[in-house]
């Protein structure tokens, strides 16, 4: 398990290579990258500021990874989440789940993103054409996370 909360950018190829290097049991690697979009809720976004709660963030992400490792047969998990000032098209988050089996890798990756979205202590503030604003949490994210309770 490997969780990083960092200001600097990341490279998915390097992370994937690190994650499975030499492990010939891995047959499937599912990954997700979240990017800054230039538009949100009808306004142009020129920049975002990502704030977090350092002493909680790491613990929270590690706990999410442990939950995924209990539910699915995984060979490796990697999460990187950035903080600080980011611009449109910048990478925000990377989640990788590797497994012997495709469905485990896919489900774990989606679960990790859903839980991260609703539990990890990050907050986005957008700079828009009409000033700054804090991004509001989305009901659709809560719903996405809650479907893992029943399955």
């Amino acid at each position, binding site marked *: 398990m490997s969780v990083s909360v960092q200001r600097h950018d990341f490279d998915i190829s390097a992370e994937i290579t690190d994650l499975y290097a030499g492990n010939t049991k891995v047959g499937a690697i599912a990954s997700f990258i*979240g990017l800054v979009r230039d538009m949100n809720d009808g306004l142009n976004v020129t920049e975002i500021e990502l704030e977090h*709660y350092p002493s909680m963030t790491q613990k*929270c992400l590690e706990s999410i990874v442990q939950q995924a490792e209990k539910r699915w047969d995984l060979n490796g998990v990697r999460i990187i989440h950035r903080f600080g000032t980011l611009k449109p098209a910048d990478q925000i988050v990377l989640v990788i789940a590797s497994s012997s089996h495709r469905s485990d890798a896919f489900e774990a990756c989606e679960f990790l993103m859903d839980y991260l979205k609703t539990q990890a*202590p*990050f*907050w986005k*503030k957008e700079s828009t054409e009409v000033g700054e604003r*804090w991004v*509001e*949490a989305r009901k659709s994210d809560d719903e996405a996370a809650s479907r893992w309770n029943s399955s």
Partner: protein
Amino acid sequence: MNAIDPTKESFKTLKNIKILYFARLRETLGLDQENIILPENVTDTRQLQKYLSNKGDVWENEFSQKKAVRIAVNQEVVMATQILQDGDEVAFFPPVTGG
């Protein structure tokens, strides 16, 4: 878990806690953290919220349940009301928006 230290019996009700405010709360309250000694009648997270709300103005606005506020005690989100212990780190923040 209300452990009593027999060597400090007269201070048994004194609880120092650290409070952190994040994102919108940090900005509207103009404060990112503070250390407080809990008043005797404030023993749990719900009472702490009421206590902060009673400071009026922006405090009332943020803590009178009009706005969604999440609470973490010692870096873990608490869903129900939780008893506060000496040394606890309590954080207040809006629903998270990372990822």
